[in-house]
């Protein structure tokens, strides 16, 4: 129904904003000052009012607190907590100072708010100009009702993504930026708010990390290798064995499928930290398993499951299998059920045995669906703090490592080195390095995988 000329101009989104500046009439130009004005006066009242409300609340926020955080961001606070002697009461009175951490955090929040308002601003101007153009062409601009209807069809992706996007920005992205920025400060034990301030130090933390401590680098390499080995074993053992288990249960002719699945799911029903703590107790040198083995006469001395370095490494991988296979079994079960039966039937008619069917039908199908999952699992295992920390605490501690033990991953080592010392800036620095490595590897693997390349053509 739209005029073709108008739609051409509307589609050219980027220039829309500047055209509004150049060619728009008075009302549109006023929309640069009062957001949404054009919309209100031209029939898109609701949309316009929303823009206006956003503008007002933003201004209120800046006046209230945003300005304080923003202005202090470059220095992260100037006033230190001071004390003044009060003779009458015989005490020191403390005058609160600036809190560097809160300034950093809410400075980031304010910057996000500014970013958001700029987006809204540009959009509001575009919309105002839009209305003007549509009016010029003699049509009525889409009403609120039309917009809402679109949200459920053409723009459905916007509807579905709104709530998740808000959630992610609030709980993931803003804290993430906050932590990344922290690596460029000197937030450590001697610079703790509220008593002390911390400030920007640029790349000094990175420099220190690489050049000051030679003892650390040897340990870093050893731990890096183990982290990688662990991630590979943990991820693939869980995946393959889980899939095989799912296949076993799923097979035609096996009864009580629900029963078998429930038994394995029981193990994830009990909180992980309980089962992990239990495991670490059960396999102690003086724990029940060893007592049982000795009573049964199978061994004369206690088997050092946890206190021996190599044993401990095998131990954590096996226990991790115990913890993780029920999950992978569930996932693969669900996907297996989705594989069309006819594929298998035609394979059987062609004379394929079960193994061939597995390799040529099941495996490729599963890999297609779950490659992104595998990648996330792999990286997740690189950062798998819980399992290692609760099972062995990263131990057994050894003097061959710098402040670390033989089952320590990079993250648990990071935790011991820095969070116990409250050296948050160093923690963030190391975390960034880990992150860069993981992210690069994942992006490469993900984008080259079949999942992405054959996304639309799988069937």
């Amino acid at each position: 129904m739209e005029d073709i000329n108008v739609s051409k101009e509307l589609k050219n989104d980027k220039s829309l904003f500047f055209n509004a500046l150049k060619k728009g009439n008075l009302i549109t130009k006023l929309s640069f000052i009062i957001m949404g004005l054009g919309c209100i006066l031209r029939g898109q009242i609701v949309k316009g009012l929303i823009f206006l409300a956003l503008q007002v609340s933003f201004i209120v926020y800046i006046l209230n607190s945003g300005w304080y955080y923003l202005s202090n961001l470059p220095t992260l606070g100037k006033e230190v907590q001071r004390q003044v002697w009060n003779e009458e009461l015989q005490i020191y009175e403390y005058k609160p100072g600036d809190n560097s951490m809160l300034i950093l955090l809410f400075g980031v929040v304010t910057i996000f708010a500014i970013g958001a308002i700029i987006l809204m601003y540009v959009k509001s101007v575009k919309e105002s100009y839009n209305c003007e153009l549509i009016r010029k062409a003699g049509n009525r601009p889409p009403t609120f009702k039309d917009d809402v209807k679109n949200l459920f069809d053409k723009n459905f992706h916007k509807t579905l993504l709104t709530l998740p996007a808000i959630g992610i920005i609030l709980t993931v992205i803003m804290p993430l930026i906050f932590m990344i920025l922290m690596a460029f400060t000197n937030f450590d034990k001697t610079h703790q708010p509220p008593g002390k301030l911390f400030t920007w130090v640029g790349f000094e933390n990175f420099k220190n990390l690489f050049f000051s401590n030679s003892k650390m680098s040897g340990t870093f390499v050893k731990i890096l290798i183990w982290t990688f080995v662990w991630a590979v074993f943990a991820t693939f053992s869980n995946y393959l064995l889980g899939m095989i288990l799912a296949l076993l249960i799923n097979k035609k002719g096996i009864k009580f499928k629900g029963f078998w699945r429930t038994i394995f799911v029981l193990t994830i029903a009990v909180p992980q930290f309980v089962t992990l703590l239990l495991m670490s107790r059960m396999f102690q040198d003086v724990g029940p398993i060893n007592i049982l083995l000795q009573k049964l006469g199978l061994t004369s001395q206690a088997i050092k499951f946890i206190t021996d370095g190599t044993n401990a490494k095998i131990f954590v991988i096996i226990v991790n299998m115990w913890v993780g296979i029920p999950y992978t079994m569930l996932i693969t079960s669900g996907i297996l059920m989705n594989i069309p039966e006819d594929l298998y039937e035609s394979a059987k008619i062609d004379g394929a045995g079960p193994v061939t069917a597995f390799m040529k039908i099941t495996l490729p199908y599963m890999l297609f669906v779950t490659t992104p999952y595998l990648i996330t699992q792999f990286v997740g295992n690189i950062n798998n703090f819980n399992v290692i920390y609760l099972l062995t605490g990263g131990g057994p501690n050894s003097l061959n490592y710098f402040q670390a033990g033989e089952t320590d991953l990079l993250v648990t080592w990071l935790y011991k080195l820095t969070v116990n010392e409250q050296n948050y800036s160093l923690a963030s620095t190391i975390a960034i390095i880990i992150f860069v490595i993981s992210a690069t590897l994942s992006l490469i693997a993900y984008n080259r995988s079949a999942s992405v390349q054959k996304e639309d053509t799988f069937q």
Partner: protein
Amino acid sequence: MLKNSKKAMALLLTAAMSTTLLAGCGNKKDDNAKSDNKGGSKKVSLKVWGAQDDQALLKEMVESFKEAHKDKEYDISFGVVSEADAKGKVLEDPAAAADVFAFSNDQIWDLYNAGALYEITRNKDQIISANSEGSIEAATIDGKLYAYPMTADNGYFLYYDKSVVSDEDAKTLDGILAAANKANKKVFMDVSNGWYIASFFLGAGCTLSIKDGKQVCDFNNEKGLKAAEAIKAFTADKAFMTGDANEVLPGGIGDTIAAGVCGTWVADAIKEKLGDNFGAAKLPTFTCGGEQVQMGSFAGYKLVGVKAQTKNPVEAMELAEWLTNEQNQLLRFQKRAMGPSNVKVAESAEVKANLPLAALAEQSKFATSQKDVLNSYWTPAEAFGTAMEAKDYSKSLQEQLDEMVAQIQQ
């Protein structure tokens, strides 16, 4: 067309605006309020943090505090934060922290560095003279007092089964080992734990100190080497047993364990198991370079601090002082068997009659303050202990000690 949707939208807008306004207001720098302590403020609200098991006792003490200070109206609320978690919780969000909180003394440096502790200046001399020297030292930094001592029982000593180990045997480590071996039982000590293993080194005369913010450790000198030899001999003995002291010792004593080292928190469990055979004494002496040397230990205290950002400093200090005064330390001992730091209470007959506390008091004569131990000490010490427990002699003792000290002093 527009009328109904207009109304609905107006409501939505108001809601949207108010939420953003709330967020805006909440962000406001709210710790700018001046502390209103010109004395005579009508209602004083304070928050107190204590461990969960302490809550009932705290409530009782607060009631008596209100009784004794009828001139002001108090609104005192409670929160559950154990002493071990106090530092973490305070520093996470000082604004939300309690005005008065209990913490373990090894957290005092971090709290002080973060400017979270109020310097104690009222009745300072009284407090110093009323409490034991060790506890005051633990609460003092740079000559200034930053907390009120509450308990003095965060140390360790020897528990033993009298039916296996006689009082005479319990005086020396060799005696204990001999008695245990005769009865085919074990002697328990968590050597792969920096807290316990220090007893050998400290006893032998080694020291831990802080210089320029870094840890200085001399565990690898001659004395340290002799102590290490003793540790090696101990862990190599047939009767040696290790594990988690809080669980394995009370679980196995009377059964497979004849004696072990731990603190007061397992006293009840052990008493239940051993009954009349319950024995507690200071740590024994051990053979160090051929001589008998008394084992040392770490001394720990629980302190009560006042938050530096509190809005009612005077009242908070009064409350903190009240919670740790002589009368209440006695009450704490009676109700929860916690060892007092108050000198008079500690000298009382009741406290002296409590076996574990008496043993601890005996041992504290040989104890070192944990204040000068930095975080870098624990892992390497544990690693050394682990190697000893695993009987890993691939490197010489001196080498291992040097390695340990190098890592500690980083």
